């Protein structure tokens, strides 16, 4: 990314009357280091795929480097077959004494019925870019009607009361912040929800990263995954809760893009159940976004962002095998982070099922203890539980004490391997043969044993 601050502005001017046949003017400008003409040749393919009625393949490019004396302007026609004839140089303007650099690209799209769709898509795309909160980058989007400067229908970003990041913040910290706002505005389906903003701190975050930068022959691939979970409806405190779908935000090299197949495969194959999530299924929607559907959701909202980027922009990407490995590693790391920070909230599905039995078990044993006429026995039990013998011990107190201890054991051992093999037996067994599971359908009427 850029080392010095840079601004990116996208501006869309739509015609005054909706029905008028005039065109949509789109301009993308930045204060970066200026562009080389070769970079635009890549758009060649895009030009061929787009019907001429929508876009005539023409770009108006204005660019200047920091050390240039002049500001250069070109018309670039991608429909032109001969690549050398694509550029037409236009009038040059000379800078006086000011030092600046940047590029502006303008294009015109025909104003068929698509305008609203296009603007909606653009807004969504922009929102996603804003989630990244890329360092040293300020992004702006304006949509206005021609000849009517006051009628800006969209202006992004809006004033946000979020944390201002220092230059030293890592990419993942920024992504966390961006995703938090995204979640609190319900995936940008509405303007910032006032109620939810208040609950910013109730959102639970899991961050995971993986990269191969340590390896010497590395190509510097970084993967960052951020999970943002609203545990209960009260975490969000507004009516849009218990959303069973998650549209995954996927970025490659700081640009929102359709999810790669390998990353999608990772998303649907990871062991969500170990963290208390029940995945019903996943699919890729028309725009290339991964959508995950949760079953019987115990979380009010789940947001996921995945960002893969190469450390040095010039490097080429490796095959998808490597991507898959690092995405999986980062996602797992994010899930583990969630679990480590908020133990009880992300208990595996198995653990949750076991927990259901705990109150009844505790009640039973507590009832047994308190029904006893043997004072010594009772005292010993109460001492073991660490309850003071001077207070009045009620069955409820014993029960809750036992519950507490069992819950913490279950949480501690959740998804650990080999816990069962090490669990102590209630009584010593003389000789333990191999574990033979008692079949539940063992006998029908206790009749036919043989």
């Amino acid at each position, binding site marked *: 990314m850029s080392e010095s601050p840079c601004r990116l502005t996208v501006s869309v001017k739509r015609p005054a009357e909706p029905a008028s046949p005039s065109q949509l003017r789109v301009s993308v400008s930045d204060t970066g280091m200026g562009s080389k003409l070769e970079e635009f040749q890549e758009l060649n393919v895009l030009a061929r795929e787009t019907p001429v009625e929508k876009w005539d393949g023409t770009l108006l490019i204005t660019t200047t480097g920091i050390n240039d004396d002049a500001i250069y302007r070109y018309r670039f026609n991608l429909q032109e077959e001969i690549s050398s004839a694509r550029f037409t140089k236009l009038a040059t303007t000379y800078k006086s004494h000011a030092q600046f650099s940047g590029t502006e690209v303008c294009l015109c799209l025909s104003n068929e019925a698509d305008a609203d769709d296009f603007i909606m898509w653009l807004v969504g795309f922009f929102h996603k870019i804003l989630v990244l909160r890329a360092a040293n980058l300020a992004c702006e989007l304006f949509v206005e009607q021609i000849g009517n400067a006051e009628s800006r229908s969209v202006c992004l970003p809006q004033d946000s009361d979020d944390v201002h990041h220092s230059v030293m913040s890592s990419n993942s910290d920024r992504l966390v912040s961006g995703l938090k706002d995204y979640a609190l505005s319900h995936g940008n389906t509405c303007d910032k929800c006032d109620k939810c903003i208040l609950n910013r701190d109730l959102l639970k975050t899991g961050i995971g990263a993986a990269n191969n930068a340590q390896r010497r022959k590395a190509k510097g691939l970084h993967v960052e995954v951020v999970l943002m979970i609203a545990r209960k409806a009260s975490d969000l405190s507004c009516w849009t809760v218990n959303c069973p779908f998650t549209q995954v935000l996927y970025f490659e090299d700081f640009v929102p893009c359709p999810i790669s197949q390998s990353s999608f495969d990772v998303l649907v194959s990871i062991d969500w159940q170990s963290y208390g999530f029940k995945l019903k299924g996943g699919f890729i929607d028309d725009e290339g976004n991964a959508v995950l559907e949760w079953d019987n959701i115990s979380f009010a909202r789940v947001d996921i962002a995945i960002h893969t980027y190469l450390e040095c922009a010039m490097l080429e990407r490796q095959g998808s095998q490597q991507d898959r490995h690092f995405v999986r590693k980062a996602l797992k790391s994010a899930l583990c982070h969630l679990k480590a920070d908020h133990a009880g909230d992300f208990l595996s599905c198995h653990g949750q*099922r076991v927990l259901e039995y705990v109150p009844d078990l505790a009640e039973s044993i507590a009832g047994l203890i308190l029904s006893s006429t043997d004072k010594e*026995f009772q005292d010993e039990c109460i001492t073991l539980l660490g309850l003071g013998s001077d207070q009045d011990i009620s069955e409820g107190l014993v029960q809750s004490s036992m519950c507490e201890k069992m819950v913490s054991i279950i949480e501690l051992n959740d998804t650990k391997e080999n816990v069962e093999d090490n669990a102590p037996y209630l009584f010593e067994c003389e000789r333990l*043969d191999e574990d033979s599971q008692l079949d539940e359908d063992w006998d029908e009427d*206790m009749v036919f044993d043989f």
Partner: protein
Amino acid sequence: MAAASLFGADRRLCSADILAPDEVRARIEVAVLNFLTALTSPTSPAISVLPLISRTSANCSLRSGLLNDVSSVYLSYAFSKRSLMRESNAVAFVRVWKVMEMCYKILGEGKLVNQRELFYKLLSDSRKYFSCQRHVNRAIQDVVSLLRCTRQSLGVMASSRGALIGRLVLHEPDEEQIDCSILGASGHAITGDLKVLRKLNLSSDARYIIVVEKDAIFQRLAEDRLYNQLPCILITAKGYPDIATRFILHRLSQTFPNMLIFTLVDWNPAGLAILCTYKYGSISMGLESYRYACNVKWLGLRGDDLQLIPQNAFQELKPRDLQIAKSLMSSKFLQESHRAELTMMVDTGKRAEIEALYSYGFDFLGKYITRKIVQGDYI
């Protein structure tokens, strides 16, 4: 497969002790203390696993008595685990504790309840865990396996379905004598309380005990007062034998060692299974039932008698019959002659009920029994 050896079996016999209420309560208290100790361990707290003696055919063996020819099935020291952490048996795990809690309280009050009463109590307290009698019965057997004490020691008895009649005088201490030869056709109901049965004084001049599978046959023979023609005692459990009936039969066999014991069952795999239970005991209650095995003989119906049965009285073997037959065939304990009978049943695919003999008149059955005994026609 462990071979039965004359000097005790190769594997150690695991037994349920007959204990006084205080002793059982003490065992339960130890269980609770062990559980809490593990739960509150400062270094490695854990939820203990319950080790239960396996009640499976893999863990059972046959032993022969040294001084008599009574063989019995017994269970050895193989365990299966019940763990809260394992989903498949978490419910069973909790059930064991619920039953222990209930038994602890019952014993504390000095009571004895039967399984049905226990079921209703548990149903009202913990509907989530006990929705049918079977759950309760199994959980009780789990507690028996865990604590290694008999069911009755836990304060639970099974209601007995058994009845007996014939040349026998019962005398409960401090009670009147009961002359079982002058009772109505339904006979004397056998109580489920083993303690009472244990204290009974028995006197008899009978030479035979006839164990009858079905109540209808029992009543027929009782009405005909078979025991006035043949010196015998008639006994029935009205189906699958319960512990109390087996217990009293065993006591009779101990008190009167020269009495021969015959069984009268339908000619089908279920009948043979009932016979085997009287003879060897059961696996499901293997920790206690080995004590009550008796040397019973198969009087009828048998393959040889089939010629007496009119063709249209035969029925097809049902899938359940075949299931039972298969299970019996694969058991380690079936003696050769019994196995041959079973094979015949399966091969012909037919079954017959004792009632089929009524085609010769209602008094035929008594004559049939008498003739068989006199001729020594039993296996």
